[in-house]
């Protein structure tokens, strides 16, 4: 966890409103794990003020390169997309606890389920799992054909099913319609309704979910990002998405 002045190496649009940015800094290395995130400062002044949490999509530890994929939505991400190569991007990270890659053994099967802008962190996860000899299936859901990205990239690590809500590409409907096979592990990142729907898959294998929450500090100090603990009758126990998560085992916290 460190504050890094990274250099923007490249930036390109890869789908409707979706951008891929690659940044360089010497400190970008193996300490960046799948499922962790970085906290990105956009713009030079204090508007926007807060950092933006963006998942680690990929890391090349030797080349000290970090890939982020983001949707240009509000003020911060729209400023970010206007940056040109050579610009300095201030990043805090790696933050949080990622996916339990080390738990998986060769030959096991993992399903990676991504929804929209929840897809990026699964890319680095998939590479890491495949390197361990894990069989990886991908089910990535998008709004429509225009918003699909990284299909080919994921295919390098295992079969890919794409769903679109409007049926304009791949399978029509939600990712949860495409999950009728067995697995040892299921990893997911995406909108809350999707994550809630996936909680029930706990009966079929181990399920890990990556959560989103509005953040202040991103490091556990401000208590902006807390969630309740499942089965806690005092209603006082909590986990911080930024520092205890963003990845939790299904059943640990209230979604």
């Amino acid at each position: 966890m460190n504050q890094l002045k990274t250099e923007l190496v490249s930036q390109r649009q890869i789908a409707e409103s979706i951008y891929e940015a690659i940044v360089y800094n010497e400190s970008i290395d193996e300490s960046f794990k799948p499922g962790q995130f970085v906290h990105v400062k956009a713009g030079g002044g204090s508007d926007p003020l807060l950092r933006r949490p963006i998942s680690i999509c990929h890391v090349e530890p030797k080349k000290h390169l970090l890939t982020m994929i983001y949707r240009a939505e509000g003020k911060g991400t729209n400023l970010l997309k206007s940056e040109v190569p050579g610009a300095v991007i201030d990043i805090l990270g790696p933050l949080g606890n990622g996916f339990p890659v080390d738990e998986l053994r060769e030959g096991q099967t993992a399903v990676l389920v991504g929804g929209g802008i929840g897809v990026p962190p699964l890319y680095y996860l998939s590479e890491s799992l495949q390197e361990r000899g894990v069989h990886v299936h991908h089910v990535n859901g998008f709004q429509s054909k225009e918003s699909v990205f990284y299909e080919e990239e994921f295919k390098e690590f295992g079969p890919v099913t794409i769903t679109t809500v409007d049926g304009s590409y791949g399978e029509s409907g939600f990712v949860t319609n495409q999950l009728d096979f067995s697995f040892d592990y299921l990893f997911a990142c995406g909108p809350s309704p999707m994550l809630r729907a996936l909680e029930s898959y706990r009966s079929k294998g181990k399920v890990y979910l990556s959560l989103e929450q509005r953040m202040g500090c991103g490091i556990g100090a401000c208590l902006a990002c807390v969630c309740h603990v499942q089965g806690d009758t005092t209603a006082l126990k909590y986990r911080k998405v930024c520092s205890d998560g963003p990845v939790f085992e299904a059943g640990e916290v209230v979604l």
Partner: protein
Amino acid sequence: MSRLQIELPGLSLKNPIMPASGCFGFGREYSKFYDLEKLGAIMVKATTAEPRFGNPTPRVAETSSGMLNAIGLQNPGLDEVLHSELPWLSEFDVPIIANVAGSTIEDYVAVSKEISKAPNVHALELNISCPNVKEGGLAFGTVPETAYEVTKAVKAVSSVPVYVKLSPNVTDIVEIAKSVEKAGADGLTMINTLLGMRIDLKTSKPILANGAGGLSGPAIKPVAIRMIHQVSQQVSIPIIGMGGVQTAEDVVEYFLAGASAVAVGTANFVDPYCCPTIIENLPLLLDDLGLYHIDELIGRSWKTEWTLQSSSR
């Protein structure tokens, strides 16, 4: 570092920079970034008699040059603070200012009495200005009489000097400041957050689950400077200023307005090294301004001798 040394009731500060309450937890997270002993003091998260979970999420929203928060005083409660958080902090040679909150005067008294006995607690900060809790909090801070009463009651039981944290959400902050001074407050801290709201266009509801929240960050700095400029001329107790401080220049502006020390809140979220960076830059800035000791700046914007002197440079 004696150029930055400041003496305040209960607080011998090696420098006048401290993280603001609620923006630094109990220091554990930031201790991973730097040695907490670099800080002049630490204002820890509000403590209430019982543990509190606080408000539902989302608890923060961004605004232009500011943020809204409605954490709702989440804290582990007095016992846990006394037995776990404060002892952990006592490993560091840095004075702690304990932020005390409650719903009734009895709450404030009960927490203040106990927490002021902790060996590393050098002062209390009475949070009578939190906008994010249903009863108490803000209400105490907007009426001179209740502000007087809670201050007086806490002063009677506290083992350490008492600073009262003022709310900016009032017509006449000088009136409130004077009544807490009369009640025996040893100092003031100001300002707490301005009450604000943002509404989500997609849901058409407030972004914060709580509805309204407290506005902090650079957006509120001019309001804080104005209030400190007003109040410091009307009371004789010292003021710890806060609201949007990000740089050493901001700190100097607060001192010129009338503050004797400065707390840094939201800026910690933007730059975790913010406090030590300010502390490093202050002597250089004093050099630029041609001053030796930072205390020469206090209230200089309204102390006539000083402004005369500076304009003759």
